[in-house]
């Protein structure tokens, strides 16, 4: 199994296409950082415009933690599309290239083979998020410095002490890893049914776009299915940046306002992953390789 995983990772990271996503993230993050560095004050004014009349905010709001939050809000919607590029190509790409039949004539069980492929797609997803974390968090901290974090949430402001932020980012990135692995599982499952990569990649992207729209639209009919859509739960990483307050409305450091939301979303996403991988194993074990 370990050998299979090594081989799969070797193939992924030797392929030029793999680095498109890393380059895309680098370019996007750099553009946003450059924009905020040169004209960040206006962006802050825009973000806090609703609350400006009722609150007087002093201090360095545009710091590395704030920039990272802004970046994650923008990018975690687009990263699934980059993950689909690789995950939805895992089986269909091999079928299209004709290498699938060569691989499956080797003494490797189909169960191990498919599991190794999914784990490799997961490792790729994690690498992409680690790269995003390095650029969005650490580079932003270098460029903009640290400070207390102030973010607007549904009509109110959340203020987090600088010393109370870093662990929240660790939690948020771990949650994002789970969410992105769900996306990888969707793409991976679809890649079983095609002999070219385009179909599963486009199908994965379409599913994400449609499910995201359904998750965000407030229509009674859609509200019934929202709890079951993985896209509804993918945004629960934001819960790490909401904090409990005491009776005097003072923040309680080290707390999360709704930890149960994070747990519930994590469970729903984990169920999606297990179900999709189990279905992938089931389908692949019975699949006639005709490519």
């Amino acid at each position: 199994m370990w050998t299979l995983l090594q081989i799969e990772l070797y193939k992924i990271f030797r392929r030029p296409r793999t680095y498109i996503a890393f380059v895309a993230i680098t370019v996007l993050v750099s553009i946003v950082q450059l924009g905020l560095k040169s004209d960040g004050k206006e962006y802050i004014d825009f973000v806090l415009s609703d609350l400006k009349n009722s609150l007087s905010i002093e201090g360095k709001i545009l710091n590395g933690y704030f920039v990272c939050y802004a970046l994650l809000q923008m990018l975690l919607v687009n990263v699934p599309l980059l993950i689909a590029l690789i995950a939805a190509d895992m089986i269909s790409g091999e079928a299209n290239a004709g290498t699938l039949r060569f691989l499956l004539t080797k003494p490797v069980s189909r169960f191990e083979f498919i599991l190794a492929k999914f784990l490799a797609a997961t490792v790729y997803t994690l690498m992409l998020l680690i790269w995003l974390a390095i650029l969005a968090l650490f580079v932003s901290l270098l460029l903009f410095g640290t400070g207390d974090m102030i973010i607007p949430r549904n009509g109110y402001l959340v203020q987090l002490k600088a010393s109370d932020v870093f662990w929240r980012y660790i939690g948020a990135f771990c949650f994002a890893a789970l969410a992105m692995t769900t996306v990888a599982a969707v793409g991976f499952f679809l890649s079983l049914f095609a002999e070219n990569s385009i179909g599963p990649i486009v199908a994965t992207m379409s599913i994400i776009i449609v499910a995201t729209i359904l998750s965000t639209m407030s229509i009674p009919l859609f509200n019934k299915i929202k709890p079951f859509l993985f896209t509804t739960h993918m945004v629960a990483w934001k819960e790490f940046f909401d904090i409990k307050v005491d009776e005097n409305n003072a923040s309680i450091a080290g707390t999360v306002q709704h930890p149960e939301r994070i747990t519930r979303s994590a469970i729903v996403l984990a169920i999606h992953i297990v179900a999709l991988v189990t279905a992938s194993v089931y389908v692949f074990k019975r699949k006639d390789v005709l490519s």
Partner: protein
Amino acid sequence: MMTQEIIKVDGLVKKFHNLTAVNNLSFTVNEGDVYGFLGQNGAGKSTTIRMLLTLIAPTLGSIELFGMNLQTHRNEILQQVGAVIEKPDVYKYLSAYDNLKLFARLNGKVTHKKVMDQLEVVGLADRAKDKVKTFSQGMKQRLGIAIALIHDPKLIVLDEPTNGLDPQGIADIRNLILHLCKEQKKTLLVSSHLLTEIEHIATKVLIIDKGRKIIEGSSADLFDPTQTIVEIQTTDNAFALQQLQQSNWRNSLQLERNEAVVIKIDKQAIPQLHRDLVNMNLRLLSLQPKHSLEDYFLQVTSGKQHVDAFTN
């Protein structure tokens, strides 16, 4: 000494919805055979080979390799098999060396020396570090064969190994097959739609058409110029077959096709066969000797579409 049965296929059937790609196919490949698997494109060769390699699940029938059931001993069996199916597709963005090492690792540990030695055998050592996307079809085919051979398998399965190759490439593959059989004592199953290609290398030949066995025998017998294939048509072919099975001709019988009974005999025995058929009270419509196996192959495999290929 008993010859080991390397492949034993019994009553193999594969259906894709309404299409029966392989229909009740049975054959045996013995140790040391170069088994020629002949049939026109779409005859069911690749489907059969894919079933032998567990790429496709049979609808019915059993497959044993090395005396073990393929379903229950898959990995143990595939450890002893090397195969190239149709085109030898590998990772184009990797070098020949990297491809060979990658595939070899799926069979177990492999050393740098072993990889280079194998590339040397197929004449690619000087291109080891070049990316496969720069290779010709012949070079890719040789690399595919290197991948099939690197773990020193007992059985080698080559599906249409000369497809798309130039004459020199075809000769190289032919020599390699003979070398593997004679010098390294390997057992080979080689499929082709070209009779001329198989007759030079195969020790046994099986011809299939529309998924069914048409004729099987040793090359020595099938290509023997003193022997001929005779097609017998009667008003009741099933009855004719039954009668012949109970006669002295039973060992010469090949099989009953839809329109005829096929028998392989010495040319000199044709008059005797004719007399016996009349004595069996069969209502004979025709008794047609074929000049050669090629002649027969062309006819039984409905070779209309591929006549050009056979007349090369």
